């Protein structure tokens, strides 16, 4: 082997914020390359929500009462915001599994021994997941349009409002990937991260206004559903899309869903990012 000792030296430390952004981008790029080489992951990530759209639309449509209407068309228009919101939160499992895998393979050790920004490994991963969520959401919206979903059936909406709704959905998805990051740092194997990343999402997404009108639930369950961060985003989407089935409840998040959705998502990011980065700093494989 020839010379391996050419003097390449580390540059002196620069602006920590700039470095943090740059390092996060390097890690995000790495994760995106990785995802593009495992296309089956993206495909499976799409099949589940598409299946939900089709099943809920054709199986439940017609037997659900939404805002006093049992029309299948109304249920379809009601349903989409719920499915969108559920789909973005499923990114939790993928980010958790990815981070647990890095941990398991010793990559986290390597990263932690490098002079890089402390939060960048997790931020890079969550940003890459955000890109994947965006792709999933676009495909899902197209499928929804194909099965007959239309915005504006209950009033006026416009392109800005529709985009704002998608923005809130992506923010919610991004917030949930930080929960995934914490799970990924806390469990031992990628398999455990996948299942523990998904199990709790079912109660969270079902005890909500995503698929049914919480007005029919027992009172305590209804309160949980109305204050569920997940419901806030679904309600905000329905308001912005002018879709049917908007809650008339006087619970604060239901009356101010856009604000509630923003606040919840930012709060989740603040709390779980702090916890996950702290865990990363003291991580032991």
């Amino acid at each position, binding site marked *: *082997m*020839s*010379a*391996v*000792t*050419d*003097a*390449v*030296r*580390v*540059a002196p*430390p*620069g602006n920590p914020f700039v*470095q943090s952004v*740059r*390092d996060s981008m*390097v*890690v995000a*790029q*790495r994760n995106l*390359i*990785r995802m593009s*080489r*495992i296309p089956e992951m993206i495909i499976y990530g799409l099949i589940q929500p598409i299946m939900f759209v089709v099943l809920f639309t054709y199986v439940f449509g017609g037997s659900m009462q939404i805002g006093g209407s049992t029309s299948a068309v109304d249920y379809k228009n009601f349903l989409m915001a719920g499915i969108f919101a559920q789909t973005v939160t499923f990114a939790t499992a993928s980010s958790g599994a990815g981070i647990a895998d890095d941990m398991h*393979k*010793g*990559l986290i*050790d*390597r*990263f*932690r*021994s*490098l*002079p*890089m920004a402390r939060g*960048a490994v997790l931020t890079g991963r969550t940003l890459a997941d955000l890109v994947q969520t965006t792709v999933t959401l676009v495909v899902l919206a197209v499928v929804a349009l194909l099965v007959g979903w239309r915005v504006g059936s209950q009033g006026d909406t416009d392109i800005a409002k529709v985009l704002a709704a998608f923005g809130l959905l992506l923010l919610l998805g991004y917030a949930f990937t930080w929960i995934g990051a914490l799970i990924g740092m806390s469990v031992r194997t990628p398999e455990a991260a996948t299942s523990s990343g998904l199990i709790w999402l079912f109660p969270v997404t079902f005890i909500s206004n995503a698929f049914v009108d919480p007005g029919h639930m027992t009172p305590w369950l209804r309160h949980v559903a109305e204050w569920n961060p997940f419901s806030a985003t679904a309600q905000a989407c329905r308001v912005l899309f002018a879709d049917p089935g908007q809650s008339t409840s006087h619970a604060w998040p239901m009356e101010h869903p856009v604000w509630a959705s923003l606040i919840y998502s930012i709060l989740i990011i603040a709390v779980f990012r702090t916890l996950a980065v702290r865990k990363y700093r*003291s991580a*032991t494989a």
Partner: protein
Amino acid sequence: MPGAIYAEGLVKTFGDVKALDGVDLDVPEGTVLGLLGPNGAGKTTAVRCLTTLLRPDSGKAVVAGVDVRRHPDTVRRSIGLSGQFAAVDEYLTGRENLQMVGRLYQLRPKAAKARAVELLEQFHLADAADRPAKTYSGGMRRRLDLAAALVVSPPVMFMDEPTTGLDPRNRQQLWEVIKHLVSGGTTLLLTTQYLEEADHLAHDIAVVDHGRVIAKGTSDQLKARTGGERVEVVVHEREHIATAAQVLRGLGKGDTTVEEHTRKLTVPVTGGAKLLAEIIRELDGRGIEIDDIGLRRPTLDDVFLSLTGHVAEAAGPDARDEDDESRPQGGKEAVK
């Protein structure tokens, strides 16, 4: 003045297990210290403490002149780590892996790119540069991992069992790389369970057991502690054993041991090659035909046994990548 790697009284406890129980180390600049010990002796924990991955409970650690506990970020800028796993992203190509690490060492994109090309060349991975690392053989992954640790030519390197799980050919190759690296002035701390490896690569050896350094010195010093040289003779005819034993008793410095079934006699000696010649003449003079004779010095295996009271376990349960060259998708090994 403390060396490039210096530790004093390092303690690290996990629950009620004392992984490190007061470890002292001092590695002068430009030398190699071999940290030798069985599985679970605390070698990896020591490396993890020195490379900022673990915070020791107490004790002092200085790497490249910087206090590890107080300025971990500064330490990270001067070290390279090649851990027990080949820590590469298997979905990225060799080139992408090295570029990523270069960028995270804060090299500019252009510099990271150029450095990756250099390293791929030096580690004979140029032909496989644009294949995902998961198609690499175990030996190739190890080389890629080592290349990643060398992206910025760090003055201080840590290698945790760099050749565990490699076949002899790949091990030999990696040894050459490591020797070359050290000849360029890099300070290296290397852990190994292979006594042969420590003997081969390290200037100094620290034997670790149960979280403590139980012996320190050069390979020769450690061997001398275990006892000096001995002569081993294998005679051709079984009936000559008694006469040969008589000769050895006369010339040797201690008890002669005899293994009847292998016709092997062993006696401790002083006087080296000169005495060996004398023994041969004497045996020859008595008409004893010999199959084999030699001056044996104690191996590190003997050292380890006498220090710890148990044999060093060779590759333990965590020996990985044993299937090395036999991977079906392994592709071609780069030509040497």
